[in-house]
């Protein structure tokens, strides 16, 4: 291979084709980057060695096994293991393709550099450049592996399950197999007609109402208290601030279970207190009747959440430059004008990303609902769907998964939640500074 590589760019096609032919081949043959080439080639060799296994796993992913009623349960092929393994293998194939593309790009880049410099970098320099790229790879490898196994594969799995009939009682491995069913689950849940789609519509609507109202009440509740504490000029304002942050400090599991007991319809202390004061004559079913239970959820969530937004608003007001207030004062603005046309709009503008984040957080706010009401009270479709009047989509997912073993429906809901939330997340991402400045 002593031929001289033309430095006028005419060999670009040749380099590209060679590197496409086998990973790292162009590095070794033409570019004299031997170590890099060998590393790339090693990746491809390993991949080829595993090819038969990979193909087997992918075929299993497509068929998900066939019913084998004649052999013992333990020996039957497990559709769910097939599904997981198949997705894992697929993600490895994707990684391999990415590595392949990178190797071709790297070869082309090396050639371009050669065309400019007219000579190859020394072996020492080329090894140094590998250790230079080695650091980012080593730094990212742990998170990529962890994310792949515990976040990406589970998510892809969930999406896949939405298109299967993986559910009790007839399709639970290993005794029975699971099959692909296309859009049937989506039709069950949003097609209308059945208890399931009725339940889904009801819960989806309540989830949105819940997310909107709980974000709205906590945000403005916190903002109003923050403004009042700041403007009142009361000496012990910091003391009140500490009191108001307490609900945020104690874990939700604890506070919500306490509230659940206090609000208990028959022997809860809230009702007993109100009756002792003669304010009510018979117990109020705080968590017992659908509409009242929903209202209670919003109020208790306000109790738990306004402290956070109060802190946020106070912090923002303190961080807003004092020059602004000074300038307004010099221009003759009254304290009220400063408050309504400077402080509040500014705080609202600055905390907008947190409002969006809080909305998405509330859509997924498992803890408050699950520990406060457990989704109860029951409604018309509860016997089939297990979902009560205060259940939101995530708590329903939990019930579908843990109690009813309707994994297919749970996955459909997860997919739908994602479709609703993703735009909000991308919106809040676009409002960040680093995105606007294009440094990402």
């Amino acid at each position, binding site marked *: 291979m002593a031929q001289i590589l033309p430095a006028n760019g005419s060999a670009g096609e040749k380099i590209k084709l060679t590197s496409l032919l086998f990973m790292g081949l162009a590095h070794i043959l033409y570019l004299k980057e031997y170590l890099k080439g060998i590393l790339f080639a090693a990746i491809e060799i390993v991949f080829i060695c595993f090819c038969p296994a990979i193909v087997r796993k992918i075929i299993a992913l497509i068929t998900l096994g066939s019913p084998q009623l004649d052999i013992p349960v333990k020996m039957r092929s497990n559709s769910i293991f097939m599904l997981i393994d198949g997705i894992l293998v697929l993600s490895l194939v994707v990684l391999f393709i990415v590595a392949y593309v990178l190797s071709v790009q790297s070869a082309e880049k090396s050639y371009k550099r050669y065309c400019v410099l007219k000579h190859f970098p020394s072996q020492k320099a080329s090894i140094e450049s590998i250790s230079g790229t080695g650091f980012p790879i080593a730094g990212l490898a742990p998170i990529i592996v962890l994310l792949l196994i515990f976040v990406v594969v*589970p998510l892809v799995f969930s999406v896949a399950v939405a298109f299967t009939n993986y559910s009790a009682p007839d399709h639970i491995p290993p005794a029975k197999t699971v099959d692909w069913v296309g859009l049937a689950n989506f039709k069950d849940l949003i097609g209308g007609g059945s208890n399931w789609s009725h339940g889904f519509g009801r819960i989806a609507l309540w989830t949105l109402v819940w997310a909107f109202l709980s974000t709205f009440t906590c945000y403005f509740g916190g903002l109003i208290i923050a403004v009042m504490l700041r403007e009142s000029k009361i000496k012990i304002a910091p003391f009140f601030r500490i009191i108001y942050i307490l609900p945020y400090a104690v874990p939700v599991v604890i506070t919500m279970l306490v509230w659940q007991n206090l609000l208990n319809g028959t022997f809860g202390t809230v009702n007993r207190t109100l009756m002792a004061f003669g304010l009510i004559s018979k117990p109020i079913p705080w968590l017992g009747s659908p509409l009242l239970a929903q209202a209670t959820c919003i109020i208790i969530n306000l109790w738990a959440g306004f402290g956070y937004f109060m802190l946020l608003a106070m912090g923002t007001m303190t961080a807003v430059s004092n020059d602004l207030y000074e300038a307004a004062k010099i221009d003759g603005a009254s304290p009220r004008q400063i408050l309504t046309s400077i402080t509040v709009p500014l705080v609202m503008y600055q905390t907008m990303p947190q409002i969006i984040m809080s909305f998405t957080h509330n859509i997924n706010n498992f803890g408050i609902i699950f520990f406060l009401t457990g989704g109860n009270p029951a409604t018309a479709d509860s016997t089939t769907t297990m979902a009560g009047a205060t259940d939101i989509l995530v708590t329903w997912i939990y019930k579908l998964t843990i109690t009813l073993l309707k994994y297919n429906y749970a996955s459909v809901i997860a997919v739908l939640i994602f479709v609703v939330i993703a735009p909000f997340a991308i919106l809040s991402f676009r409002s960040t500074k680093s995105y606007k400045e294009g440094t990402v």
Partner: protein
Amino acid sequence: MTNYKTGQSITRTLLMIFFIILSLFVIYPLVYLVSSSFTPGNSIADIDIKPFAKGFTTAHFTYIFHKTDYKIWFLNTLQVAAVTTVVTMFVTALSAYVFSRFTFPLKKHLLMSLLILQIFPSFVGMIAIYVILLRVGGFDTLWGLELVYIAGNIPYNCWMVKSYLDTIPRSLDEAARIDGASHFLIFRKIIMPVARPIMIFLGITSFTGPWMDFIFPKMILRSADKQTLALGLFSFVTDKKNDFTLFSAGSLLIAIPFVIFFIFTQKAMMMSMGAAAVKE
């Protein structure tokens, strides 16, 4: 002038009354949490509507320590929280440093996928995590739970730390690079000390998370000696039995450190939350 002053003092009094009423509403359930953990009896029905009116006992605390697995739950949770925190801090800081300081192919795609992954509540993939843990032998083990926590928190934390590191001037590390310092040395000796505030914040959030989580321990941990506090406390007040006083006593022991911690850090938290919001 006097009119204005009386008007102001009336408003101030009204505000004061409002703040006091609000405080009562806020501490109402917390007062019962404290009082019922010292009240004889079991269920919420045994608690008098006047806090502390039905006598005083420390029997529930004795019971919790001697008759239940509270100590095991506590140590398990502590272990999970500690391991999660240490690994999360190291792994997240390192990758955030790479994202902030290096340019490499696919960087933009990786960052975008972190953002998208962060939207999913991590228990959406619950069934898959269950099966994967079964396959790698991590089912019903604390390290399985730790892995799930560590991985689940990466997307959000990575973004958070990366954004913070972006605000640290590059001239700092470039000067060191010219002097021949290695990447890891720069990371350890230059970036980490400057990034201390965000690392402390990361440490706190990763440490407090496992104390409150319920879903994953419920799914992953089965044996009696592998339970965490959230599971244990929840088991006191299931539908079948209502040991509200025991639950209160156990919860109080957890709540107190949390409350003390928040009281000491709330001012600093307020400042940093405000500063972060204004910076964006």
